[in-house]
């Protein structure tokens, strides 16, 4: 559905990005400021012509420098949602929304309707408002709606929540998830925020200094030890897809099921059966050679060590197969004392209270 391979030379920077996405879903392009995200977005939308490259969306070749194909931005049918919204101040909200709608000339290509978008993004109260009076969150929702109404073949969101405060961000993320669930449009979501990454990504493309360092499914990519610094630094750790299995009201706990076991965490106000993604921070995982007794930790998972990081630093990252890859970070001293090595069976201990940040997935 989406195939990108571009190279671009800038004065102090070389961009070399390639990734692909097979189906409609959210591809998060993740990287720090300066990693090349904006350049990439400008290339995708047709605002910058790369030195060489090829972009194919939904079977349509948007760019092929070898063949000389380079569709202009207005021909690419990419819905671009800018970080700063960029609503037109001389139109009211309704007219902003429909700006691109009539420009989709062939009626058969207009697959998304006005009412659909207004319902999806909750815009009915805003339609007659002037753009200047809108809050940041309202503005971004209108910007998303405006891009959607062009019936794009790809939705491109460039750090859309970066200018919003935390409550606003939390409020908009469900709308973005609905986009993925209800419209069959591939979405490329640019961000440097980990919470957005973990919550929204089906596929991750990691950018570092202009290069694609990794691309692939979220869980696999985030479990890679070699990418630790880029995928979370001190918060690095494996991401688990779990579902709520039950609650313990007496002690205020919730049980979460995953492929291979169960985790117990502090009580969540989330209904039975809801699917979530949670991140288990590597630094919250301790290891033991024997199953501990009389210990406060409620989560004890066993598995064999798959991989260990090398190096002379004080810490070692260890990947353990507990049904899913789990990442633990321990001292090199302990690794030596316990003679930890790939293949060894260990017990991973995770404190329930360590799960203080949750990401929801509807």
């Amino acid at each position: 559905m989406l195939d990108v391979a571009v190279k671009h030379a800038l004065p102090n920077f070389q961009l070399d990005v390639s990734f692909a996405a097979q189906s409609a879903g959210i591809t998060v392009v993740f990287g720090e400021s300066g990693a090349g995200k904006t350049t990439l977005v400008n290339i995708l939308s047709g605002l910058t012509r790369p030195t060489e490259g090829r972009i194919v969306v939904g079977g349509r070749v948007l760019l092929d420098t070898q063949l000389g194909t380079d569709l202009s931005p207005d021909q690419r049918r990419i819905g671009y949602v800018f970080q700063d919204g960029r609503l037109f101040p001389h139109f009211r909200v309704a007219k902003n929304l429909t700006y691109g709608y009539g420009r989709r000339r062939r009626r058969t290509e207009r697959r998304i309707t006005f009412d659909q978008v207004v319902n999806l993004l909750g815009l009915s109260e805003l339609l007659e408002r002037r753009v200047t009076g809108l809050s940041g969150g309202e503005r971004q929702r209108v910007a998303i709606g405006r891009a959607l109404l062009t019936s794009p073949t790809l939705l491109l969101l460039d750090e859309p929540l970066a200018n919003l405060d935390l409550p606003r961000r939390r409020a908009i993320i469900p709308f973005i998830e609905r986009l993925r669930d209800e419209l069959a449009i591939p979405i490329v979501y640019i961000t440097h925020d980990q919470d957005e990454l973990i919550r929204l990504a089906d596929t991750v493309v990691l950018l570092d200094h202009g290069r694609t360092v990794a691309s692939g499914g979220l869980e696999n990519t985030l479990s890679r030890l070699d990418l630790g610094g880029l995928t979370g630094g001190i918060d690095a750790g494996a991401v688990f897809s779990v579902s709520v299995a039950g609650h313990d009201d007496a002690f205020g706990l919730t049980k979460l099921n995953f492929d291979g076991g169960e985790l117990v965490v502090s009580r969540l106000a989330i209904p039975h059966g809801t699917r979530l993604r949670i991140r288990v921070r590597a630094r919250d995982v301790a290891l033991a050679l024997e199953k501990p007794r009389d210990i406060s930790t409620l989560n004890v998972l066993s598995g064999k060590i798959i991989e260990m990081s090398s190096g002379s630093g004080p810490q070692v990252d260890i990947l353990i197969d507990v049904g899913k890859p789990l990442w633990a970070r321990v001292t090199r001293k302990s690794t030596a004392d316990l003679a930890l090595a790939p293949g060894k069976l260990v017990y991973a201990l995770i404190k329930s209270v360590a799960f203080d940040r949750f990401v929801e997935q509807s």
Partner: protein
Amino acid sequence: MMSWWLSPNEAEALLLSLRVAFWSVLIGLPFGIAAAWLLARRTFFGKTLFDSLVHLPLVVPPVVVGYVLLITLGRKGFIGGWLYDTFGLSLIFTWRGAAIAAGVMSFPLMVRAIRLSFEAIDQRLEVAARTLGASRIDVFFTITLPLALPGILAGIVLAFARALGEFGATITFVSNIPGETRTLPLALFTFTQTPGGEDSAIRLVVISLALAIAALIASEMIARRVRRQIGS
């Protein structure tokens, strides 16, 4: 006791001025918008020269402008001659020539006002419009031009006021023919040179001042109102 009623001569001069100024602005506007857009948005070889040419009528003696118009557009001039031979159209000694003289002299003011407006527009909005499927021309007419409206209106009113007051280029190019090229300033001048013309001159002075002040106030009010509507 002086009467404030205008004599037929004076009324004729006033109406002629309004007509000349109106047409000079109308014809000059598309060129003014084009020149302003080029200067605001494009870099090209010879841009500084072009910029200087546009502003020349502001700094050069108006009589010089009138003379240049005479030698190019007069019946023996290389454009004027062609016009006369092909269409039988003569510009000198006509109100049309007066309109051209006024238009040339007020052009720089129009361009300056419109250019400022273009430069004040956030180009990122234009970029956004393109991603929504608008071609460059589409963007110009639906985004750029509407957002530049305050400056365009201000430019129109300023140019109109300047055209009303044009003297040197007009009298040099199309001379001082009552009813045809004797606009308000020319009529005023004539009255000051005529014995007994003082009362007429005073009346015309008052009218000229009133028109100029009205134009400036209108220009500012329109610009303010449109700016509010646009929300910038």
